[in-house]
């Protein structure tokens, strides 16, 4: 608790600044849940803080799915606006804010990719973007990435394929069945078995998150 005052004071300075990011970091000591609660109070600064924590990841995800800067930005914006609109109904006990936000980003990106028929599944060229240099949670992000990547690698190839094509490619299960020339039931069970295995591998709580500890 870096910014704790005496006697139960929590400082949430509301100074407006030219660069909202600078201002946003004044909420850096709050938990993700607390930030979402402030977003529910129409607090722009809290929205900016949320962006600071997850914007880059959200954009990375949207961009991976959409392969288009403008569309990726649209998806991220819609997801954050979704949080803005509905934060008051978010129940902290039921999910991590990061899961919620990333789910919104994913859903939006997948909607767009289906509409635009832009989906591509080949990976970006290796090393397109160096990880490093910006936010302090870079190292943590890299670790998370390594963790999930290794877990994916441990999956049987066909389960991994189904999950990756669905999640990063935006394919529906029916499209996958067609594309892979397999019965729909096979695709369903690959996704289910693979995702269940991934869940167990990552730990039940899937404790992958960024933001301040």
């Amino acid at each position, binding site marked *: 608790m870096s910014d704790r005052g005496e006697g139960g004071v929590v400082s949430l300075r509301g100074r407006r600044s030219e660069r909202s990011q600078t201002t946003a970091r004044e909420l850096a000591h709050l938990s993700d849940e607390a930030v979402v609660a402030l977003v529910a109070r129409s607090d722009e600064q809290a929205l900016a803080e949320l962006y600071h924590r997850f914007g880059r*990841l959200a954009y990375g995800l949207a961009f991976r799915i959409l392969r288009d800067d403008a569309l990726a930005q649209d998806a991220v914006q819609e997801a954050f606006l979704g949080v803005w609109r509905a934060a008051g109904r978010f129940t902290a006990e039921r999910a991590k804010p990061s899961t919620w936000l990333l789910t919104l980003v994913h859903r939006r990106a997948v909607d767009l990719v289906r509409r635009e028929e832009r989906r591509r599944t080949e990976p970006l060229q290796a090393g397109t973007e160096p990880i490093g240099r910006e936010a302090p949670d870079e190292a943590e992000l890299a670790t998370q990435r390594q963790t999930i990547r290794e877990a994916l690698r441990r999956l049987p190839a066909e389960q991994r394929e189904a999950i990756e094509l669905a999640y990063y490619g935006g394919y529906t299960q029916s499209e996958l069945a067609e594309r892979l020339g397999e019965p729909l039931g096979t695709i369903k069970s690959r*996704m289910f078995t693979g995702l269940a295995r991934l869940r167990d591998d990552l730990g039940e709580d899937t404790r992958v998150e960024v933001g301040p500890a």
Partner: protein
Amino acid sequence: MDNGSPHELSAAYALDALDGRELEAYETHLAGCEQCRDDVASFRATASALAYDVDLPPAPETLERRIISAARAERPNVVPLRQRLAIPTAAVGAVAAVAAIAIGIWAIHLSNSVDHQKSIRKDQKALIDVLSDCTKTPTEGSSGAVCVAPTEKAVLIADSLPAASPGKTYEAWVIAGKRNVQPAGLFRGGAGRKYVLLTKPVRPGTTVAVTLEKGGGVPAPTTAILLHAEVKPS
């Protein structure tokens, strides 16, 4: 045709791999299947972990500003930063209604996570609890407000009280009468807005006040009241 168990679809659903009628049918099923809702919640968490396996191109610099502007535009009465506790009452339109439905479905689908709950810092939670359901009374003397929850827990919001000089502290008081003045928390002040979770319940008809006292606080106020708010009887 596939006749697999609908339970199996929780994974596809969490991966957003259902659409059209499949999606509708599954959401109907979900409404009556607690097990599926639990599965979806945990699969959502797993699926969102996949988001971390992406290259991270720097997000465009303008995106944050764009989001904030759009957010502001959606709620014309959005509380500016300095009064952000005001409760927005504007309808946010059809788009928001859709989002509300989406979040409703979302909330139903997610299960409890005890660990997660534990991670919420207690004092922040108390503060947020109050702020998320409270009645606000503006202060007089200096800009601010007192927000009192139905539980009588209260948060004092002080805007722009200059930082207390060394050896001094602001002290909040809950005043229920001349002989009933209780110390209710210390704070430093300083630029911007301060939120002070008061240590005493604030009942209707009492007054919350702030004075500047010597460091460490005093049992009863010794200086002039800098700001105060009388909480109306309900």
